[in-house]
Structures are given as structure tokens and as C-alpha cells.
């Protein structure tokens, strides 16, 4: 049983210009006092093609965490545009919030992110070289994809049992079960855009 339950993530400052920092207001509940800090990360998936373009925007430690309900705002700078393949700058990608305890990831919250030009002109004829100043980032806040992993809350990572870590009902990518395969796959792998579930793309 996970000692930490994420109760809510509110996406602040959304939609916003591409260069604005990401802001997530995270509410979580902890069942027992945690002797160690939680580590939260925001990962921006630069390209669906390869995780090589994933950027960890920032990571913070959160603590001390006594039993109870807590909230904090996790703010991280916008992605480094230099690391994003030009072809992937506009369109749908993914931002991930992960939380680890004692080096073990126990929750992964994925959001679809749509980057598009606000100017209809640019939208019609996007420049070859993306103009990030004109891009608007829209996080699909209403549809987070949450994947939880079983970790060993008492000890360290090595006692993990793989069998329990596997999704009991394995799904092909894109099903409603989880945004991403469990941690047996390398983190940060995004879904091919074509496989996105229909309901998640309301705003497209």
C-alpha cells in the first residue's frame, strides 16, 4: 500500500506562452510520517520519437512529510528549446510529473501538451524554424494519466519485486490504463501521437 496518495494536481498558468515556467499545484496525502524526502520531477518529452529528447525540467525534494494532507507548488522553467527537434516543436507532446521515494518511482502523472501558434496566420503557415515566442502551450489538465507503481516504502530499491511491478492487466500503449508502460520500460517514452486516445484530444 502506497504511503503517499496524490489527491490532486492543479495545472496553474494554463494555457500560457511557451516560455512561461510550468506550475503544478500538487496535493497529496501521506499515511505515516516519512523519514525521507519525496523527490518530484517534471519531465518534458521533446519528441515522441525518442526519449533521447526528454528533458528533466527540474527536480525538487519535498519534505519533511508528516502524516497528513499537504500541498505545494512545483514550478519549473520552460524546456530548453535548443534540445527540441524542430519538427516536434509544434503539436502534441507529453509532460510527466514523477515522484520517487528512496529512489523508487511510485507515481507517474502524464499530461498531454499541445503547442500551437495563437496567430491564425502562423497556424496556417508555420515557419520552418519554430518561433517559440509565438507558441502557446496548452496542457490538457482535465485528463491526467496516472500510473502507480508498487515500491518498497520501508527499505531501498533493491528489494523490489518485479512481478508486482508489472501492470496486472497489461495494456497496449494508448489504452486508458496508464500513460506509459510501467517502470520496466525506460521512463520518458511518449506515445506515438497517432495512438492517442480520442477523448484526450478534445482541444485539437
Amino acid at each position, binding site marked *: 500500500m502506497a504511503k503517499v496518495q496524490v489527491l490532486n494536481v492543479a495545472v496553474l498558468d494554463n494555457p500560457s506562452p511557451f516560455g512561461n515556467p510550468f506550475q503544478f499545484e500538487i496535493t497529496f496525502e501521506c499515511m505515516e510520517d516519512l523519514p525521507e524526502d519525496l523527490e518530484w520531477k517534471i519531465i518534458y518529452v521533446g519528441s515522441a520519437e525518442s526519449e533521447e529528447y526528454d528533458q528533466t525540467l527540474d527536480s525538487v525534494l519535498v519534505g519533511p512529510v508528516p502524516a497528513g494532507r499537504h*500541498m505545494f507548488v512545483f514550478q519549473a522553467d520552460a524546456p530548453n528549446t535548443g534540445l527540441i527537434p524542430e519538427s516536434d516543436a509544434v503539436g502534441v507532446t507529453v509532460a510527466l510529473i514523477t515522484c520517487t521515494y528512496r529512489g523508487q518511482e511510485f507515481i507517474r502523472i502524464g499530461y498531454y501538451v499541445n503547442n500551437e501558434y495563437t496567430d491564425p496566420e502562423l497556424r496556417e503557415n508555420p515557419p520552418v524554424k519554430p518561433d517559440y515566442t509565438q507558441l502557446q502551450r496548452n496542457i490538457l489538465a482535465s485528463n491526467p494519466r496516472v500510473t502507480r507503481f508498487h515500491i518498497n516504502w520501508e527499505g531501498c530499491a533493491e528489494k523490489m519485486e518485479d512481478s508486482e511491478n508489472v501492470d496486472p492487466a497489461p495494456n497496449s500503449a494508448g489504452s486508458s490504463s496508464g500513460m506509459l508502460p510501467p517502470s520496466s520500460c525506460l521512463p520518458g517514452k511518449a506515445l506515438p501521437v497517432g495512438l492517442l486516445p480520442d477523448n484526450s484530444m478534445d482541444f485539437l
Partner: protein
Amino acid sequence: MKLLKPSWVGHNGKPIFSVDIHPDGTKFATGGQGEDSGKVVIWNMTPVLREEAEKNEATPKMLCQMDNHLACVNCVRWSNNGQYLASGGDDKLVMVWKRATFIGPSTVFGSSSKLANVEQWRCVTILRNHTGDVMDVAWSPHDVWLASCSVDNTVVVWNARKFPEIVTSLRGHTGLVKGLTWDPVGKYIASQADDHSLKVWRTMDWQQETNITKPFNECGGTTHVLRLSWSPDGQYLVSAHAMNNSGPTAQIIERDGWKTNMDFVGHRKAVTVVKFNPKIFKKKQKNGSSPKPSCPYCCCAVGSKDRSLSVWLTSLKRPLVVIHDLFDKSIMDISWTLNGLGILVCSMDGTVAYLDFSQDELGDPLNEDEKNAIHHNIYGKSLAITTEAQLSTTIIENPEMLKYQQERQREELARQSLPREAQAHKLTSVVNGESLEDIRKNLLKKQVETRTADGRRRITPLCIAQLDTGDFSPALFNSVPILPGSVTQLPSQLSSDSNTATSLGLRHSQEPMSTPAGGKSQDDAKDGVSSGLAQANSTALKSNLLLTASTKMEPMKALDSRFTERSKATPGASISSMAGLVPLDSTLKESKPKEETSSDSEDKMTVARSLSFKRKPHDPDGGDNQVEKRKKGRPRKSDQKMMTPGSGPPLQQVTRATTLFARTAARAMSTWWAILFYCYVSMEPPVYLEVENEFSTVSGAKLSQLRCSREGREWDTLLPSRVISAAGSSDIVAVACVDRMLSVFSACGRRLLPAILLPGPMSTLHCSGFYVMALTACATLSVWDVQKQSALVRNESLQTILSGTECTVTQSLLTQQGVPVISLSSGKSYCFNFSLETWNLIADKQDLLVQCADFRNCLSSQDTAVSHGPLAVMQGRCLNAGRLASRLSSTPHSLQQGMTLAFLENQLASALILRSSVEYRYWLLIYARFLVNEGSDYRLRELCKDLLGPVHKSASSAWEPTTLGLRKRDLLKELLPVIGQNLRFQRLFTEYQDQLELLRGK
């Protein structure tokens, strides 16, 4: 019989492994597979029972879903009282859920369904012990125990009153244990496993009663579960999957001799679940039939892998009904409604079916009384009440008891009837008077962000609510929140009690130069530098903060004790104290040679120790500061003279001394170069002493002057030698001189005694009321009662408490009752009892008992924590720390219980010997609550007996009607409601209630 398959009950098509109907019949729980976790769902029963409710959109169907299990949930079971739900799953865990009343509707974050949870069920305990999947859980009758069985071949019995305490682990099965059932009278528990055996265990000693293997020899381990069941009359135990002549059966095992002669036959595949109807039935009396009473019988439902369900009456040879093809897959669990007329059945195919019977079909259910009568007939009264008694059916024998019980119920009701929404609103939207919206707006700005040593960002999350069930109480309703692990909370906790204590510190740091005001220091204000002193003066005038009596304190401790002293000091009876210090030169001169010689002789150790004791003022935080401060504050007297002994301490601590001044001012201010010093006796009314050494020189002899200002009236007197320390109380003033003379004056300056010659130079001097306490440099202690002109303690050597350890005296005080208390650097504090003539240990910071005692649930919200009183001063905050530590440690309950008991008895005895009546009463109530909670009959009885005393007066009785000025019978009167809270003690309650009543009549 009606049959219904509510299509809306399901886990999105995933298997449902378990179903259980709440005892009140309004809801039911299902457990099984969720999307990527185990799932427990609580459903509304009404739409199952009534079609119009099902069609009404406004009627919620799903009440709550919990995705907390990490893997498939195999079993869900409500406790018999309906308060808890236990669930066990493939994640090896048993979780116990309780309804949270303070939190409004919420969704499971990230779940696809947008339905809010109508009810909030929160996991209150996670029971971790199994090393394999948990297959079945079962609550014992009266919810005394919870048993769980697992594929790790064990059955674990948990103490349901003290989760997660394990009562026992039943070992003996050599295969996966897949089913459990309790004997309805609580004498046995039975388990069935894949090892082809069914075992019955006694609850008396948790040993195996019998092992039944024969009917299971042919069985293969082919079923997911083996849910066996015990009949409500206790006479029959029916197993799941058994074999008889190669055919699957449900074996009937008779309680009498564990005979296995009968079985339920007919299913084509293995029986997975057997469930007895909770009711015992008797035949429906038909009009015209003979009124011959029929034998009561039971009813049992059997579910099988063959997807069919059969319902049997023990009075019939054939099943009442068999339903085939109800499901697409194996039946997994069955639950009867409490009225015995409905059953819910769940299946691996993810659906649930409901069967509704009529009384015509099943018969007339016996009511509870008739059922109990059957139990009594078969098992006798004693057995029927072996377990914790059926409290609900226990007769309340006395109207007073009834009154208390009813009051309690009313309170409970009142609490529950508070509008849920309002409570939820309060909690979720307001934290410390700030709405959640406000908090959210500013959260980013307000949250504390730091950098760790390696440069990483670290955010301290904002705690918006504490958990509200189990041990936790909602933060807002608890004036002193216990935040485990956050020692940083302690200061603020303190300050919430005594804002004066913090305002002192704050004011000093924030406005150290503010215009000083108040009494004597006005003329000094012009000096500017005196602000610290004056500040202390003005602040302290209000807050009486200088009444502390310590020679050396850490800041925290200082706040603590200052507060405590303050609250104790009522006008007119204020304590005062003044720790005088031995002149440094004499100390050094006297003790240096001794120190050199004492290294080899054991008997001189005390001297060496008293040396270190005297040296305390050398610490930068200690006396030197005041000296410096003194110099700053009153520079008019020979600055040079004070500076000349340049070997003295440096001046660098001045600023610190300013902030520390209030704390230190009460302490001694005399070292040998101190020419002028004063000390406060009390702040309300303002009383202070001023001593000016070398006031005037008459024919070569130097005279000292003692001035006292009491409520604006001043007196002064002359002393022939240098004063080294002075102290006063509301009644007397005492001064010690360098020539080992102690003089005592009345409040108006009259000399009360000729000078007393002390055996050694004065080290610490305290006054309290008419008591004077003198601690001399040769480590002896004396206490006199000036009013009665008698000695309470006569030159008692400190060797007893100092010997064998390398410790020094860190703090001393004299209580209002004249009890001297001394704490040592080892963390131990002693008081000297003059009637026993013994040193008694009253506090020990290293005491394991303090650290492990857990009596939080015995604290009443009405009692404010006593932080006033000598016991609290001496024990200080280690008490709190102990309470925190206990939450984190995982001591076995019985051990912790013992430690808590021992600790509480220590506290009670210490309060008694310190003659601190407030503390005595406080700890007595906690102790009584603890005894009541733990059911310690003998101790409680003895306590009551002692408090009541003899009812009839007899000359021989040595019983004192009062203790520490508290009337014992009044104390007993206070204890009775506490005792009345536990029905088990109703006899005790009645007994003493009556006797008190009788005595009042006299």
C-alpha cells in the same frame, strides 16, 4: 424468490472476488481487480432492493471506491459493528477502512470515472505480516479479533482493538490457506487450505483443536478460494471443496466430536464458497397445522466453480433451490443480509447477483433473544459471555450508569449530527483562519523553499489537514496539534500557550532600542545602552518572566520554565528566587588546592564536584553575561573598578546578553567584582532587591546596603560584609554574605533571625513563601521554615546524588511547599523529602519509560497540559518528545502498555512527593483513564478504595481525607465518570457511586 443481476455493479468487467453486505443493510462492498491495482468499491444497497431507487438518478449507486490495494483484492469483510471494513489482497496486505466524516466528496485522482465518492472511507491501518497473497479475512464475534489467511500457509490473528498488534500466528498448514471462519460463540476458528486439510483452532490458547483431512484427500488445489462457514447455532461447520466418492461436496463437520458424516452433494465442480445465513429459522406456522413446535434449523448457500448456486435448509434433505448458469464463471463469494432474506453472490466474471427470499420460503427467523437463548442452552452462559461480553446486550444495572451511558451517546450523536458538509467545509477550506483559496493563491510565494547541501531545491509542503481517523484528530479541533517528527513545532506550540514567552524574545530581537520604560531603570534610560535591561524590565513587568530559578538553562528550557513559573505565580504568593554565586576568587582559591589533592582520594570527590558546580558562571551564557549587562545597565558606579580584573570574561557577548537578559537577570549577578546588583522578587506586584556592596566605608570596614522596593514602598538595611547573593519571596527576603552569613528579613525589612552561619560559602539561594533554601559551595543543602523557625532539611549532603557520576548541578528550585529540587547535568532531577529524609528521583531525561510511554489517548481535551508545576519544569519538554517518539517506535503493545503504566505511576508518585497538587490531579486523571482503557481491574479498585477511605469512622483508621490539600473523595467523584465510560466497570462505578452518595448523606 426473486433474482436480480444489477448491471451497474461491477469493476469495469474485471473479476469480483468478494462481496459483503454491511450489517445495517444499507450498503455492500465488493473487492477484486481494478484497472492497475486492487479495487474495493462500496455500493449503495437501496438501488438493489428497490427498483424506483435504481431508476432515480439522484440516488447514488457507488458510494466510494478505493484503489489503494496494489494488487487484486481477494476478500472484503465488514466488522460486526459496521464501523470498519477489512480487505485483503494479493499485495500481501490487509487494510482496515473507516469512514472519514470530516472530508467532503472527492474523486480518485486520475481515475477515468468522474464520479465523486459520496462517502469517504479511509484506510486507518495497514496490517503487514503476510509474506504472500491474503486470501480471506474474518472478524471474530464482537470484533475482538480479525483473522487473515494467506498463501504463506499461515493464519494471523490481529487484535482488532489495538491494530496492528498481532495476537498470534497460527502455523500448521502446509499449503495455501484459502478460507477462514469463526465459531459464532468465539471458541474456535477454522481454516481450510490447499494441503487437503481443515483445521480448527481454539481461541483460548490458539492451539489446534482438530485437523480434518479425510474428506479432502482426493481434492486438488483447483479453487481460488475455499470459503468455509460455521452455522449460526455453532453446531455445524461446513467446508468448501471436499470430495466424496470422486464427487465434489461441501463437507458438514459436527461440532460434537468433529464428525464428518454428512455433506452437501450435487455440484458438478469444486465448491468455492459456503455461507450460512446469520439467522436461525423455525418453521412457518401454517393455519390449521398442529401447533407442535418444530426444531429450529439453519440455512446455507453454497457456490461452486460450476457457476451454480444452491441454497439448503438443514431441515431438508434436498436443496431449497439450485440456480444454474447464473454466471459465466466461478462463484467467488456470497453474503447474506442481516435479516437473512437476501443474498448477494459475486463471480469471477465480474458480475453480482441478488436473491430475495420470502419468509414463506425460508421460515420465520428467530430474533436475537431466541438465538442467544439457543446459545445459552447449548454452550451455557459462561461461554456465551467469554469474549468481552456482548456489551450491547449487557444489562445496565444502575440508573447512574445508564445516565452516563446516555450522556455519552448523546455526545456521540451530537458530534455525528453536526452537518457533515459544514465540517468538511471547515476542514478543507480553512486552515488557521485562512481559506484554502487564499492559501492556494499565495502558495507559491509562501511555501518554504531551501537548498540542500548539494544545491538541490527542497520545498517544505504546506500541511493543510491532518488525518482525521484513527489516532489522528483534525488539526483544527485540536488546540495543540501533535506533529510527529517536527521538533520545530515545539516552540510555536509553546508560544500558543504563552505568547508572552515568545514576545519577549521577539521584542528583543526586533526592537532592541525601543524606549525603555518602567520603574527603577528610568534614570538609566538616558544611557541608551541600558535598553536591554529596561526592555527586559518592561516586558518582564507584564509577564513575570523573571521568576525562574535556574542557574543554567538552555533557551527552550528557559521559555518553558518561565512560562510555568509565571502561571504558578499568583499575586501575593509569587515565588521568587535568586541564584547567588560564590565569589570567584574565593572559589578558586579555596578549591584549587583541593582539586589537586583530590584526584587520588575518593572521599574528596564531592569537593571537586562542587568546584565544577561553582564554576558554572564562567560559561559565556552564564553569569558573566549579567555582569557585563550589569555594567552596561548601571554604569554610574566605578566603571574602572569593574573593568580592572581584566582577567574576567570578554565583553563580546553584550548583544547576546541583551536578548538573554530577561532570562538571566533573575540569576545571580554577583561575582567578586560585582558591586551593585539587583534582582526581581516578583513582577506583579513589582518587587525587587538591590544590593550595593561597598556602599560606604566606616573606619576601614566596608558596609553593604540592601534595598528592597515593594509596590513602590522601599526599605533598606545595612550589612557589615559584602553580599554575594540575595533572594526574596512575597513574605521574606534572604541575603547571603561573603563571610558565610545568611540573613533573613521580613517583607518590610525587619530582621527575623540573627545571622545564620553557613557551613560553606553560599552557592545558590532560593526563597519561596516562608521557606529559604540554601545550597552551599561545599555541596550541602538546607531548607528552613522561617515562620515556624524550624529546619526542614539540615545540611544534607549532595554526595548521595552526585556520587558515582561525573555530573554537576544544573538547576535548582524550591517549590511553594518548600520542597527542594535539584537537577543534575546527567538529566536526572531529585527532590529531597524531609519526612522520609531521602532523595527521590522525580525526572530522568534518559528514562526509557518516558520515551516509550504512550498515553495520548488518555489525555482529555479539557485538561490543558500541565506545564506549570515543579514536575513539569523538571521534566520539561522531554515529555513531549517521548510522546512523539512513541508514535514512531514499534514497540509491541503489551510492552508499551507496561511501560506506560510504569511511567504514569512514576509521575503520580513524583507529583505526590513534590506536593504539587495540580500535577497530582492531572496525572491521576490520566492514570485512571489509562487503567479504564486497559481494563486493569485490580489497580483501579485499589485506587478507588484509597480515595474513598473508610466509610465508617473508626479511631484506628490512619486514612487521611485529603492529599496535597485535595479532598480524596472529590478526586474520586472526578474519576467516576471516567470509570463509567467502560461498561465493564459498571459494578465498580455503582459501588463507589453509592458509597459516595451515602457519605454525602452523612
